[in-house]
């Protein structure tokens, strides 16, 4: 009789516990979905061809946000140019060449630290090194370099993970057939790790595209009459634009604010979607 009650108690506890945890999970996820839907609903009315391809007028209160869209595009590409080759190379080093020495451990700690530095501190660093010391001025170049260093740890970690996931046996077989280490990396390891690396790169760039603080003092401008012509020009950018119009422009039409937020959201979510698709397709096609 007592054993029965005890057993009911345990299962009741489990039932309650599971329900509680499930509710927590729902409470965490619901706001995400709600946020996206809310911005979609409120921002859609502002979206028009003119909004997406036109320039702003009347102190940003009317017209389009093309320069901000193009600016974010330039910054994302600029970030990719610097962070992707360097990040992948560093990942290859850590996965294929580095032994477990104190130096390697220091490198890993350095990467973890880079990942944890607040974005605004990156902005300060970018200001100190690229804008002032190297005299690039407030420019796409300075902002991209700053964003690249910030994105580096993300790319290195995900790339290294993808490289390590490739079975060690492939490397052994390749070497036994007369390949050098680099030939093995290029022909087999890198090739098989590429989808995972790509996913990491896209997710890293997605974060860079949405960041405001690192570009605040290194490249962002509020209003530019025309599109940037060279990497040494400053640029408008979606995150910065959203920030300014929602906090510093009086009598800013709410519709345009939501519209800008929606465009930024779509930019970021599209990248996310591409990354997810790449990842699941690669998983299906994998030959190991």
């Amino acid at each position: 009789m007592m054993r029965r009650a005890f057993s009911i108690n345990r299962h009741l506890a489990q039932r309650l516990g599971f329900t509680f945890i499930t509710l927590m999970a729902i409470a965490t996820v619901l706001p995400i979905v709600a946020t996206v839907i809310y911005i979609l609903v409120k921002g859609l009315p502002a979206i028009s061809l003119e909004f997406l391809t036109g320039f702003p007028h009347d102190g940003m209160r009317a017209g389009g946000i093309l320069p901000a869209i193009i600016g974010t595009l330039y910054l994302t590409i600029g970030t990719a140019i610097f962070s992707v080759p360097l990040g992948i190379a560093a990942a290859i080093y850590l996965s294929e060449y580095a032994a477990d020495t104190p130096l390697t451990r220091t490198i890993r700690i350095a990467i973890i630290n880079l990942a944890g530095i607040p974005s605004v501190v990156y902005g300060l660093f970018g200001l100190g090194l690229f804008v002032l010391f190297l005299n690039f001025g407030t420019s796409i170049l300075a902002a991209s370099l700053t964003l690249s260093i910030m994105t580096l740890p993300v790319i290195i970690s995900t790339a290294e993970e993808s490289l390590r996931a490739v079975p060690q046996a492939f490397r052994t077989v390749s070497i036994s057939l007369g390949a050098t280490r680099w030939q093995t990396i290029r022909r087999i390891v890198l090739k098989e790790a590429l989808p995972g690396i790509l996913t990491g790169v896209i997710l890293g760039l997605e974060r860079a595209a949405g960041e405001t603080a690192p570009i605040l003092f290194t490249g962002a401008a509020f209003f530019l009459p025309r599109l940037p012509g060279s990497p040494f020009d400053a640029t408008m950018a979606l995150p910065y634009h959203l920030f300014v119009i929602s906090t510093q422009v009086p009598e800013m039409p709410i519709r345009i604010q939501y519209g800008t937020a929606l465009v930024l959201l779509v930019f970021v979510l599209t990248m996310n979607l591409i990354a997810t698709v790449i990842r699941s397709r690669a998983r299906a096609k994998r030959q190991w």
Partner: protein
Amino acid sequence: MVDKIIVENLSLQYSDGTESLRDVSFNVPEKAVTVLFGPAGGGKSTLLRCLNRLNDLTEVRASAGRILIDGENVLDPDTDVIALRRKVGMVFARPVVLPMSIRENLTYGLELAGEKRRSKLDEAVERSLKLAALWDEVKGRLEDPAIALSGGQQQRLCLARSLALQPEIILLDEPTSGLDPISTGKVEAALVELKKVFTIILVPHSVQQAARTADYAAFFLQGELVEYSEGKTLFTAPKEKRTEDYVTGRFG
């Protein structure tokens, strides 16, 4: 018979100093099957990996001795290890097919060596698949992913893969340990044909396989070479008591 490989006083150590092999010496005649057998931990696989310098990737170092292949010491730091690995092919215990098509698996080594001519590559593919007794089974689907083959077929593909480079010596490390008896039989039959052309060193996964296939046999116990002689005599009338105990199954 000419000796293809001469192992002279070889001693191997792990990076922490523990010994893997102690003062091992024996000869491997050409165009025959030499079997290295014994209980686990005997150092056989480690020895095998010295022959194609695959141990360079691990923490094993030769602390003494030489390995002469065609008169040249392959443990010498100046050795061209790439050329060595093409001359000494290896088949591993678990079939590891590269994530490519059957054909690409076979041409991988040749392309690394710089061979680009389609005709030469095709010829190598057919030749090596026939040697490995796999040609008839896959000739119609060379572009299929190699992973689609059965375990036994994959292992014969791995054999064909090393044969494609036209080695002189083939090392097989428990090649049939994961295979069913029919596939095992096919591999052993292929070895009988192959030994007419190549020098073969086999680490068997059972004493029975050793007895079936060995022209010459070496018994290893805990890093020491206990006895070496012709296969016929070693399994029927071994000289050392330890050999006899192992071969008759008194320990294992």
